[in-house]
């Protein structure tokens, strides 16, 4: 972790509450994320971790609370707005575009930066053509970075799970995000795949300075790679701090870490 310097608060969540009918998914949760840090959200199943990410990038709209992103106060996010402001995301159950090749999947991550109009695209002239080439260049850099050159023309539906996860990450990186939300990037992977993924996450954080918010169940991974950890349980925040603090927090131990630590 050489050139990395933790900056100011980039994302601040204040008293977020979200409910679906009678189910209170999130209750009065506040925490912040600093620029360039790796921030983990942990908690047992159903604790509200994924809902939290969905609130941050605007898929869900909280009933109460406030989201402050880069100094701008807002009640909730809208998916398009979140994407435009540089929040990217990967999914717990891979949400790739199954009918498209790896390359096209990653190219979709560039859609917000492509401005040519429909007619130019239909005629493949001027800006449309130029844009395709420029963005292809950028996408190829990401493909190199994630070491998936050999599968760039393969339809994603044919890829094994571990590689699909990597393509999912590639698509998010293609947005050149400031904040990257990772929803269980290592779920269902074997040890080698997990190691690769950890390396990529740390490299993204280190080389691009991307702020990372991740949900993960593998405690070893979380404690190793994150700078700070927030712990949720039944929609409430029960712990927040650097890994060692969280590990020592008796409430966290009883709710989650249990006997394994």
């Amino acid at each position, binding site marked *: 972790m050489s050139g990395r310097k933790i900056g100011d608060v980039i994302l601040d969540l204040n008293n977020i509450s979200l409910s679906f009918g009678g189910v209170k998914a999130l209750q009065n949760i506040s925490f912040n994320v600093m620029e360039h840090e790796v921030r983990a959200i942990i908690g047992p199943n159903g604790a509200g971790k994924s809902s939290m990410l969905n609130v941050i*990038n605007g*898929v869900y709209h909280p009933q109460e609370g406030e989201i402050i992103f880069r100094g701008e106060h807002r009640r909730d996010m809208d*998916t*398009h707005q*979140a*994407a*435009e402001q540089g929040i*990217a*995301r990967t*999914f717990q159950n891979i*949400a*790739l*575009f*199954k*009918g*498209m090749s790896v390359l*096209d999947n990653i*190219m*979709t*991550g*560039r*859609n*917000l930066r*492509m401005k*040519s109009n*429909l007619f130019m*695209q*239909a*005629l*493949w002239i001027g800006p*449309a053509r130029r*844009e*395709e*080439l420029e963005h*292809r*260049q950028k996408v*190829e850099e990401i493909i190199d970075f994630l070491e998936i050159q050999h599968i760039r023309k393969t339809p994603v539906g044919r890829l094994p799970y571990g590689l699909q996860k990597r393509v999912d990450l590639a*698509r*998010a990186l293609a*947005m050149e995000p400031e904040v990257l939300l990772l929803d269980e990037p290592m779920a269902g992977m074997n040890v080698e795949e997990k190691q690769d993924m950890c390396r990529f996450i740390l490299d993204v954080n280190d080389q691009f300075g991307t702020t990372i918010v991740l949900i993960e169940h593998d405690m070893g991974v979380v404690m190793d790679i994150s700078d700070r950890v927030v712990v949720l349980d039944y929609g409430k925040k029960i712990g927040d701090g650097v890994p060692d603090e969280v590990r020592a927090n008796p409430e966290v131990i009883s709710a989650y870490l249990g006997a394994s630590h």
Partner: protein
Amino acid sequence: MLYRENGQFKTSYQADQQIFPIAQDRLGVLLLIAFAFVGVPFLVDEYMFRAILIPFLILSLASLGVNLLVGYCGQITLGAGAFMAVGAYAGYNFLIRVPDMPVLGAILLGGVSAAAVGIVFGVPSLRVRGLYLAVATLAAQFFWDWAFLRIKWFTNDSSSGSVSVANLDVFGVEISSPLSKYLFCLTVLVVLSLAAKNLVRATIGRQWMAIRDMDVAAAVIGIRPMYAKLTAFAVSSFYVGVAGALWGFVHLGSWEPAAFSVDRSFQLLFMVIIGGLGSIMGSFFGAAFIVILPIFLNQILPVFGAIFGVEISTATVSHFEIMIFGSLIVFFLIVEPHGLARLWSTGKEKLRLWPFPH
């Protein structure tokens, strides 16, 4: 061994992003187009043009339009017949009401009108999907069937809703002989097919496919579902509308609303499903299957019967035609649910390795 990309190294992204990156494909398609323009006119007679080739070209264009919406953007539609009708009647109105309106201009404006109508009837797609959307688009079909029959202004006050156009000329060339009609339709089809190929490899095409495959993920990376879906409706309806105008102006000459009934909508949807969803090539296969196969069966069955010394009556031929046609549809859908286009690409995939097993 011929169909192989060995040794064709791409040294620029531009070369890698061509419509047909494999040289043999490029050559094949160019030869096919050249043959269609130069070879076909010497080989076929007037009947072939009128009964088979012109309907095939126009319905290919329409099914291409439907495929952009259903196959690429995943929005199912049962209103394609209505959009063809809008293209035809709008084109007709532009032609008779605007002084000195060129025919090509009227046809394209017919397409533009269909696109506008398509956007309006595409609005339900923002809330409903799948079969529910199919039913919602049926509304377009019933509405326009009714409108062209009952609102006399659209049909220039003709009593039965039937209208006709005559003396078509495009850039000074008169489009009246079957050959000139064929060449005109072929030109429109080739140009619009290339445009479609460009659209689906550009950012808009990727946005459509992203919406089709996983709409939440698409929204999260900044694609606006509204923009993607409504542009798909607009572009698709434009293609279908131009096809409708050609069907009326060039193929039929005079027509009434029944020419664009709900049957037509179903037929176009079947073409796309049989041909291959999400494949430009598949649109042509589907149209060929539905337009050409029945006629082919109709011609071949008596010949076939004669070989075995059996006289087959005309009525029997048409019964068999329907039976064989129906069973072929079932057969192809079982063998390859992704349509004829998938069979085609699997074949090409195999050919690339042939004669080695892998």
